[in-house]
Structures are given as structure tokens and as C-alpha cells.
């Protein structure tokens, strides 16, 4: 009997040890070293040298990192922040920057950036203003957007040439091109003029990027104004694609992977896509002869409101960090040209101007986008952005599943729902 009790006691002890959390909280000290904890949103964002040079240059600072997927980073971070165990730096989707700022979970880095600007203007000025603007709330930066990417569009040059079509200059031209490719018999039965993700699992970033290029505006609080010319136009654009069979009849269940797959496997002539995916297209199709990228066009009549939109994954600084100076050094390191170049070319473009020059040089498919990239505007976000996304997904799906419904009526209905979020 005694043995059984000992055995049970041992098991309970094991459970307690297993359930007991380790201290992975905000910066602490490891002997003489200051420890800075960083949560990356994707493994690919981690520099190839894994902070080797940083540790050599800063022997008094030790960087420890983990990968917490962007999709769960905010919730995990806030939960840990409440118990004092959050990391010093967390990488998130840019839409949640203000959520962390409002919750008091992010540190206003203004004074540290001022110091950076004074002490090392060279490295500071190498970053686009967007690097500081993206993670800002009410004008104050709460982190640093080292990587950012705009949504462009890609199209099949060989099919366009065969049909005698020019590169589209407006969204009307995109529809005309899709119609021509279909009607001229360039496309087979299972090929489509324009591919897009219409399902519920895909965050409506593609939809929002098209909306912005069509001149879509946002309220000061970050709500999309869909009851507008741009709103009605995008709904009508989606409806036309379905009504005229210019996109897959399965578009309501197509996620971003289906969309990309259709383009790369030669089943779609055009698609909206993030800059980083162009490298994948290059692996499957020949740049120039088979495909090319272009900036998403404006809506006819909406040229003045056209904007290139960007999205980003900024590093946000913990409001409880004990060593903001050490954190600043980590951010400077991650945005340093030598370090970020490798990540940018391998994975996502950067807000570091010097590196982007190299990026355009190295990647043939990226050339010609310099000015548009630099003028990119970050996709605005609302304090209740997840609910905004839910409603934008509803609107997108409503347009795709009801191609004959009055667009004006549809956008008015959704505008009322969006306005309730303010």
C-alpha cells in the first residue's frame, strides 16, 4: 500500500512540475547579462545568423526567442502580459497594434526613437516613414515595422499577347481582359480570367486591398466606407465575375492557396497577390514570357483616390519591459541592412530603403515597383478590426453568392452594420 501511495505521490508531483509554468517573462537578468525575449510571428522572420553578431557586439545582452504564430500572438501575448510573463517584443499583424496600445500593453517608443535619430541618423533614415507609422496609435510609435508588403496583381503575358490585349489600366480593363480571354477561346473550360479567394477562412486582405486601389476610403476610426462609389464598384466587380463566369464557380470555397494554385498551374489569367508571392510564381512560370506583375489599377473615375496599400507584421514593445534600451538595440539590429537583407530577399520585403534597392536589383520580377512601394499606405484598422473583417467577409460572400442583387442596397446594409462598431 505504501508503494502505491508513493507511486501516486510521484505521479502527482510530476503533474505539478509539468503544469508549473517556467519564467519566460519580460526582460530579466541572467547573471550579468540582460535577457531580451522576442516572439517572432513566423520562423522565416528570424535572421539567419540567429543573433550571433548581435551577441558578439553586445556581450551584456542575451536575446532569447520563440515562434508564436501571428494568428495567436495577440491573444497569447495579452494573456501573458496580464500575468507578467509576456516577452519584451512581440510580432503581430499590424491591425492589432492599436489594440495593444489601448490595452496599455505596448510601450510608447517615441523618446527612444528620438534618441536613435540623434545618435545614429544614418540607420534611422534608412527606414521608410511607414516603419514607424504602421505600429502607431494616436501618433505615437509602439514598435517597429521592419517588414511590410503591398498587394500587387499578376497576369499571364502569353495569354494577353495571344488575345491581343494590353496590360489593364483600370479595373474595367481587368473585366474586359477576362471577358476577351474567355470569349476568344484562349481559356479552356476549367480556366478562368480572374482568380480570387472568396471563402471564409481567408482574411479579407485581398478584398480590402482591391477596395483601396478602387479609391475606397476609411473613417478616422478605421472603418471602411463601403457605402460609396468604390464600395458599390467592388461589389459590382465581384458580382460581374460570378455572373459572367469570369472566375471559378467554386469561388465561395476558394482560399488564398486555391487562388495561387490556379495561377501557378496555368488555370487563371489574373489574380491579386502580395509581393512576396511573386518569388513563388517565378518558380513555376517564366517571368516576362509567361507572367508579369503590375500595380493594382484604379477604378475608372476614381484615379484621384487610388492608393497602394500595404500590410505589415510589426514588432511591438512590451510596456513592462525593464530594459527598453536593450530592446531598442534588438530592433536596430533586426532592421540593420546587413541582417534584414537576407530575410527580405528570402521571405518578405522590408521598410529598409537600402535593402529594397538590392531587392529590386536581385529580383527581376520586382523591378519597376520602387516608387509605388515607397508610397504605400498601410491598410487602416479599427479597434474592433476582427469584427470589421467578419463584416467585410460577409459583404464579399454576399456579393459572390448574389450576383443580381442591387449593389447600392447591399453596401447600405453593410455600412449600417459597420457603423455600429464605432
Amino acid at each position, binding site marked *: 500500500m505504501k508503494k502505491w501511495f508513493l507511486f501516486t505521490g510521484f505521479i502527482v508531483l510530476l503533474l505539478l512540475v509539468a*503544469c508549473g509554468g517556467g519564467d519566460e517573462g519580460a526582460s530579466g537578468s541572467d547573471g550579468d547579462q540582460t535577457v531580451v525575449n522576442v516572439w517572432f510571428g513566423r520562423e522565416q522572420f528570424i535572421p539567419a545568423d540567429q543573433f550571433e553578431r548581435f551577441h558578439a557586439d553586445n556581450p551584456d545582452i542575451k536575446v532569447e526567442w520563440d515562434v508564436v504564430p501571428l494568428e495567436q500572438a495577440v491573444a497569447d501575448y495579452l494573456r501573458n502580459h496580464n500575468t507578467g510573463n509576456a516577452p519584451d517584443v512581440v510580432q503581430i499583424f499590424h491591425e492589432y497594434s492599436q489594440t495593444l496600445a489601448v490595452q496599455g500593453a505596448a510601450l510608447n517608443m517615441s523618446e527612444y526613437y528620438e534618441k536613435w535619430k540623434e545618435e545614429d541618423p544614418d540607420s534611422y533614415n534608412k527606414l521608410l516613414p511607414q516603419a514607424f507609422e504602421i505600429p502607431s496609435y494616436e501618433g505615437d510609435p509602439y514598435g517597429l515595422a521592419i517588414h511590410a508588403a503591398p498587394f500587387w496583381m499578376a497576369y499571364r503575358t502569353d495569354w494577353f499577347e495571344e488575345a491581343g490585349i494590353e496590360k489593364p489600366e483600370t479595373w474595367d480593363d481587368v473585366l474586359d481582359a477576362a471577358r476577351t480571354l474567355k470569349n476568344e477561346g484562349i481559356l479552356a473550360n476549367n480556366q478562368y480570367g480572374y482568380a480570387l479567394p472568396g*471563402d471564409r*477562412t481567408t482574411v479579407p486582405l485581398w478584398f480590402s486591398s482591391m477596395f483601396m486601389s478602387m479609391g475606397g476610403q476609411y473613417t478616422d476610426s478605421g472603418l471602411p466606407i463601403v457605402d460609396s462609389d468604390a464600395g458599390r464598384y467592388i461589389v459590382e466587380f465581384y458580382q460581374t465575375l460570378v455572373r459572367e463566369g469570369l472566375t471559378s464557380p467554386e469561388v465561395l*470555397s476558394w*482560399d488564398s492557396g486555391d487562388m495561387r494554385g490556379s495561377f501557378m498551374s496555368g488555370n487563371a489569367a489574373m489574380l491579386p497577390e502580395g509581393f512576396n508571392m511573386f518569388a513563388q510564381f517565378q518558380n513555376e512560370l517564366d517571368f516576362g514570357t509567361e507572367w508579369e506583375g503590375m500595380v493594382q489599377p484604379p477604378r475608372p473615375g476614381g484615379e484621384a483616390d487610388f492608393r497602394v496599400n500595404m500590410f505589415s507584421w510589426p514588432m511591438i514593445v512590451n510596456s513592462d519591459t525593464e530594459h527598453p534600451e536593450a530592446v531598442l538595440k534588438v530592433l536596430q539590429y533586426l532592421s540593420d541592412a546587413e541582417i534584414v537583407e537576407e530575410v527580405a530577399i528570402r521571405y518578405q520585403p522590408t521598410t529598409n530603403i537600402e535593402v529594397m534597392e538590392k531587392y529590386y536589383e536581385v529580383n527581376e520580377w520586382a523591378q519597376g515597383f520602387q516608387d509605388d512601394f515607397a508610397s504605400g499606405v498601410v491598410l487602416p484598422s479599427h479597434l*474592433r478590426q476582427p469584427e470589421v473583417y*467578419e463584416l467585410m467577409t460577409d459583404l464579399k460572400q454576399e456579393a459572390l453568392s448574389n450576383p443580381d442583387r442591387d449593389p447600392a442596397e447591399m453596401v447600405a446594409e453593410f455600412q449600417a452594420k459597420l457603423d455600429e462598431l464605432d
Partner: protein
Amino acid sequence: MNSNENVSINMNPNPMPSKGINKNKLKKMAVPYVLVLPALLFVVGVLGYAVIAGTFMSFWGVDLNVPGSPFVGLENYIYLFTTDRFIGSLLRSLVFVFGSVFIGLVFAMGFALSLYKAKKFSNFFKGLALIPFLVSGIATAVMFRFVFSGDVGLINMILATMGIDQILFLSSPNWALFISILANVWFVCPFATLILLAGIQSIDQELFEAAIVDGANKIVIFGKIILPLIAPMMGISLIWLSFASFNMFDVILPLTGGGPGRATEVMAVYMYNVAFNELKYSLGSAVMVIILLFNVVTSFIYLKIFKVTE
């Protein structure tokens, strides 16, 4: 000390051995409870804590998008029952669970009877039948996407060879819900099969032999012997099917994401979206409590009908 007490004491010939027997008996009785203790602690620690904390949280306004978490009482529940989106998800859940339980039970019974009859390689087939249960929800969803997608889906390819038009299984609301039910059944059916098989195997073989001698056919044997005798196992099987179906979201989420529209947004998917996408923890907790109540009520009904405890 009265005379009765004297008698009782005197009549015990050997009081010490009796005490020893009681102690041994006590030890033997305690062993199962001691062995169960770690598992019990684990369940109470993980599940119990989550349920209690979740229930508690549902009366507060924890929303990560806004600071503060005030006490709101029943406000979250009132909000849910006055919101079309939640009412819709509740009704879809009932359809989803009913469909899953009905199809799941029919399939599980069929598989259990087949496995009972399969004498050669029976262990191999039992292992094979359990495979869907061991596959992750995401893998199940991906597999069903491949099978039911439009252009390259297996089913549509078969339909095409028969000259039948393509069916947009995942883009049509009713079809999408039906495919979600099928995927769920594929995922939860094996465990129900094993429960029923255990029930059938526990029936005394002589009962079957006697029934055959009396001239009973297979339908009579199934209806008069198998069904009544495995009723408790059917109850457990139904509890499992309902419980797993009410809680199902890990197949639906990657399969349809709750769409098209909201066609497959059952309560568990709604709960996930509200809690982990919209970061409204308290509202998500309130949905969790409602799902829990549904599970408790349905389990209670099954236990009563099938007299599982007897």
C-alpha cells in the same frame, strides 16, 4: 457495562485477526481509487478549471479589444439569444448534431456488426476501423476538400465519367453542411463502432444459438437480442456522438471556415470565432456554457432512455 455488551465481546473468539481482515479489505478497496487519482486530478485540473473559470468569465465583459473587464451579469447570454448570428448557429448545430448522430449510429452499428462477424484478421480490421479517429481534424478536412472539390475532386471526377454535371459541394450552403456532417461522421464514427462492438461481444453466444434453434432470423436476432442487450452501450455511443458533434470545430474550420455565408457556422465554430478571432473571451465563454448545457441535457436523456447505469 450491560450484559449484552459482555455477550458481544465474549462471543468474538479472535478480535485481532478480524481487524487485520478489515485493514486488508480496506487496502484492496482503496487501490482502484488510488490508481484513478492521478487521472482524476488531471481531469479536474485541466477540464474542471477551464469549465469553472469559463463559466465565471461568462458573467464578466472580458474583451481584449477594449480595456477593463466589468461585471455584466447575464448580459452576454441575453446578447447571444437576441442575436441572429448565434440563433442561426444554434439551429445549425441541432441539424448538424442530429444528422451526425443519426448517420453516425447507423454506420457505427453496421461496422460493429461487420467486425463482429469478421473472424479472420479481426484484429487487423478493428485496427483499420479506428484509423479515422486517429487522423487529425485538419487532415480530415483537407482530405474531404480533395474529395469534394469541384474541378479536381474525386466525386466530381466520378460524376463526370457518368456524364453528370459538376456539383459545387463546398460552395453550396446545403451541400456544404451535408459534407461537414459526413466529415464529422467519418471522424467520430470509429470510436462509437468500438463501443458497440464491445457491447455485441459481451452477449452470451448461447443466446444466439438458442434463437437460431427456435427459428429466429437475422432481423429478429438483431431486434430482439442484440439491440436490447447492447442498449447501455448504445447510450454511451450516442453520448459520444452527440458530445463530439456539439463540440466539433476542428474539421469544419479548415473545411469550410463556417461558410459559404454562415451555412456551416455551428455553435462550436461560432465560439471559436468569437473567442479567438474577435478576442471576446467572455462571450466565447458564454457560448461554451451553452454548449456544455446541451451536452449535459442530451447525455442525461440518453442515460435515462438507455438505462446505462443498470
